[in-house]
């Protein structure tokens, strides 16, 4: 028990600093993924000439392993496109890109599941396509895909452990720093794993709760 006190509890500032970086990376990546996914989905559905490009990007983001994408964004993009300018930015960008591919497909499934009649009704009531999208389509899609969006956040948190490889000081890399100081991996790594598991469990419990509530309230099949 002394070891837990010495290696984990007394080092809690180091670990918590890492946890806050992890949360930061994940939240930025999550927002980027939702925006990117929305854009990719809309381009794929409504912008004919760019459709093949959107399909290719969605498939590329979904089918390339996150670790490979992370290394690629971190080491190739700066020279190719001039950004991201830091490993932190590369971290959230890679995580965001991967999830944007998945979310684009989630949104598309949500939009395609809506009965066509609703769009026709909106048009015949005199709404513009933009209005129709904002007032009729988007609210329903957001509700129906909310649980999957929350789930995608757990995927981001899990993958975020890899940003430690490109030296972002997240929880994983802080705990490895502690190990290299103390040479006692048992308590430190176990505590780190427990923190991650608890974090992901909490997020997915929220997702489950949300799904149940939406189903009860609006009769949505989640």
């Amino acid at each position, binding site marked *: 028990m002394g070891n837990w006190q010495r290696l984990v509890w007394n080092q809690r500032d180091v670990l918590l600093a890492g946890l806050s970086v992890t949360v930061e990376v994940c939240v930025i990546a999550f927002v980027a993924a939702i925006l990117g996914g929305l854009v990719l989905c809309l381009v794929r559905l409504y912008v004919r000439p760019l459709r093949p490009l959107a399909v290719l990007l969605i*498939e*590329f983001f*979904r*089918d*390339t*392993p*996150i*670790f*490979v*994408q992370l*290394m*690629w964004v971190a*080491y*190739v993009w700066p*020279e*190719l*496109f*001039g950004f991201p300018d830091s490993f932190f930015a590369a971290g959230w960008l890679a995580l965001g890109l991967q999830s944007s591919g998945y979310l684009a497909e989630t949104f598309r499934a949500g939009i395609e599941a809506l009965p066509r009649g609703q769009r026709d009704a909106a048009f015949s009531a005199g709404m513009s396509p933009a209005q129709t999208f904002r007032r009729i389509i988007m609210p329903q899609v957001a509700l129906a895909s909310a649980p999957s969006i929350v789930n995608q956040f*757990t995927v981001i*948190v*899990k*993958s*975020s*452990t*890899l940003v430690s*490889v490109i030296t972002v000081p997240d929880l*994983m890399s802080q705990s*490895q720093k502690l*190990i290299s100081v103390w040479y006692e*991996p*048992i308590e430190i*790594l*176990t505590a*780190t*794993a427990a923190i*991650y*598991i608890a974090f*992901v*469990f909490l997020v*997915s419990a929220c997702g489950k709760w949300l799904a149940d509530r939406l189903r009860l309230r609006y009769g949505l099949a989640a």
Partner: protein
Amino acid sequence: MSDALKQSLDLSMFLEYRAILLQGLIFNVLVFLGAAALALVAGLGAALMRMSRLAPTRWIGTLYVEVFRNAPDYIMLVWVHFVLPLLIGIVIRRRVEFHPFVSAVIALGLVYSGYFAEGFRAGIEAIPRGNLDAGRACGMSERLILWRITLPQVVRRMLPEALNLFVSMFKATTIVSLIAVPDLMYNVSMVIQQEMRPLPLYTGAALTYFLLIFLLSAGVRAFSERWRRAILV
């Protein structure tokens, strides 16, 4: 900038090292096969425990599934490689060390066994009770019922989902390079250290994995669609 683009699209360096890089890919496949076998067996075990009649067994099964489903692959990999041997060593009072390959198989196998357990459970619970009662009425033992009545139906029902899990699992094998299993990514970073040219090599690696996994998942998608149509008739 266009120079960088040209450099990253010029894959001749990636091709020059193709022998060693493809050798790495074989390690990806080997880790995948080992981990898949472990995940299936452990997943079935955990699913059966979760549905056991004994409450403590059920609790252990639930705890197992929740832990591994919510654990990030990378931390499990590091934990299995650096902590598990120490713990085993304390128990058997001998120095234990895992070969990186063994750690990779155990870690990925455990993580995905959590997902497979949920699949198995959903599949088993979807089987009408009457099937089991009929089996018992014919005098079959519980084990015979599991093998002859339950599992064949579960496998049929969960095959598409299982194939998707296998694809994710193959993607996850790329992280084993981080504990020095000489897979494709590991060899890529070795070559980069020698040649100091990350652009074409990382791009080549990304494209290789993309093509491979794209083909795999397109195949799975096509197969699943036909499979669902066939068993729903």
